[in-house]
């Protein structure tokens, strides 16, 4: 089962929850850090990273001897990454989305694909409180590169369908977040009880409804704001599965790269119960489908 931890607003506690769930789990699991622009889960998990592989996208290179400057590639390219002017064809690889269209359309077979590195994937291991193995995977986008989705997709290729997998997702509701949550069995939306938290939660809820993925809400820093998130969830019949109280001990522990369970060890019971409740939600969603 794949559980994605997401949020509309950044900094609501996605990584705090994802890492704490991984540590609380009572079976061997996978933790995938899909927030490739700013991956942070390793800071709390302190995994032993043993392998690194590059993430590449395929960009076209031109064989000028074969190219007749017919311009068909530039006409097809929706991203203006290739242009033919007079008797010259130019490629702007930083605009390329790797759709492969130019290569398919070239009548002279003058374009070939060449890998370009845009990030990397680290893999390693950590341990849960029970001593079970946590397989840890982290994706990192190289600085100056714009396209996070290919790195996120590569991270997700490491999913073992036979294990419980937790995905720590990027914030927001656009391409990176959607790429990360696509294919998940369940999404936990982490929010905080503030106007910003509520506003961005609503956006995330609409996104998940559009994508038709079952989800529930976790309120972090409960008590720091008002009741509007609770009211919204009950009005919209969204299960609110967990509240993590606003506690300066959590913030201080977090600042030292210590997880939620270091600050509030008693929460382990609630987190294990949460995993159980997600199981039930997913089973119920599958029943309603069949």
């Amino acid at each position, binding site marked *: 089962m794949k559980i994605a931890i997401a949020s*509309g*607003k*950044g*900094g*609501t506690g996605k*990584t705090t929850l994802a890492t704490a769930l991984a540590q609380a789990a009572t079976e061997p699991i996978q933790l995938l850090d899909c927030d490739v*622009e*700013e991956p*942070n889960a390793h*800071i709390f998990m302190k995994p032993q990273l043993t392998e690194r592989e590059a993430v590449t996208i395929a960009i076209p290179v031109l064989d000028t001897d074969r190219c007749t400057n017919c311009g068909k590639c530039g006409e*097809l390219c*929706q*991203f203006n990454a290739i242009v033919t002017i007079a008797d010259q064809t130019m490629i702007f690889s930083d605009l390329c*989305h*790797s*759709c*492969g*269209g130019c290569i*398919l*359309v070239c009548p002279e077979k003058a374009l070939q694909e060449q890998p370009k590195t845009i990030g990397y994937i680290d893999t390693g291991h950590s341990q849960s409180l029970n001593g079970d193995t946590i397989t840890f995977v982290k994706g990192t*986008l190289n*600085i*100056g*590169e*714009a*396209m*996070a989705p290919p790195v996120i997709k590569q991270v997700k290729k490491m999913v073992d369908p036979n294990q419980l997998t937790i995905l720590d997702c*990027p*914030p*927001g*509701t*656009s*391409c*990176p*977040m*959607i790429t990360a949550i*696509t294919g998940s069995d369940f999404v936990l939306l982490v929010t905080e009880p*503030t*106007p*910003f938290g509520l*506003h*961005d939660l609503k*956006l995330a809820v*609409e*996104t998940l409804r*559009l*994508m038709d993925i079952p989800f529930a809400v976790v309120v972090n820093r409960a008590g*720091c*704001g*008002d009741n509007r998130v609770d009211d919204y969830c009950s009005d919209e019949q969204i299960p609110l599965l967990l509240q993590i109280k606003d506690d*300066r001990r959590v*913030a*201080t522990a*977090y*600042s*030292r*790269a210590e997880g939620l369970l270091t600050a509030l060890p008693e929460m382990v019971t609630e987190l294990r119960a949460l995993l159980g409740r997600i199981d039930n939600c997913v089973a119920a969603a599958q029943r309603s489908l069949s």
Partner: protein
Amino acid sequence: MKEIVIISGKGGTGKTSITAAFAALSTQAVFADCDVDAADMHLLLAPLSQQSYPFISGNIARIDAQNCTGCDTCNSLCRFDAVRPGSPYTIIPSSCEGCGVCVHFCPEKTIEFPPQRCGQWYQSETRFGSMVHAALDIGAENSGKLVSLVRQEARNLAEKHQRELILIDGPPGIGCPVIAATTGANAVLVITEPTCSGKHDLLRVLELTNHFDIPAYICVNKWDINPDMTEEIKTAAQEKGATFVGTIPYDEQITTAQIEGKTIVEWGDTIAANAIKKIWNSFCEQLDLPQ
């Protein structure tokens, strides 16, 4: 005219609350909310939307079911897993990259490619000045282009009203939207927090600003949560060539003000409000901005 972008790398460090406070303190500025994925600044600035415009970006594939023979060409060529095989085949809009490969190679020419509406942008008035903001449609792509558009419209507005300064609330991360929000700006102010994650993300953001050669300033919010880490961040940021402009103490009143729809500097003489005023003044002096 100067463009100042406030970003954070990591989300939730207080970027929007602080940008809105700066907006309240400024007298000569136009505001732009470039965090189009999760635009929150309007919750504090309460803009009255004067005009709204659709944001059209690129095209999206759509299979005309009548003529689809299920030949699978589109599915075999699509690199974005955006084709759902079936009878008929369909396109998953949230996965479609808009590359047009399926449209071009469909042997039945039965895939349409209409322009895609991806959101809306607004030009509004707030109690502190004019503002440009936007909302990306649910599941829509290309927030980077919308960011560029919001910035451009803010520049147009600043020119029209002869404003000397554009204050931009930037997006989190280091990817496409951040690059779109920061390239060519006069300065970037990074709001961070004294945590290991905050430091980690700050250093990645500073690599980005160095890469694009944008002067960077930093400010540590909630500094007293971990004073040692605050010092560590200050040193690390200065080693990367960033200028340190100050710290803001942890202040629950920021949340209270937010609930009341006010910026912290309007809410009262709180400890955070005073620190933010000091930072604003020193930042304006250093950058020679109209205060």
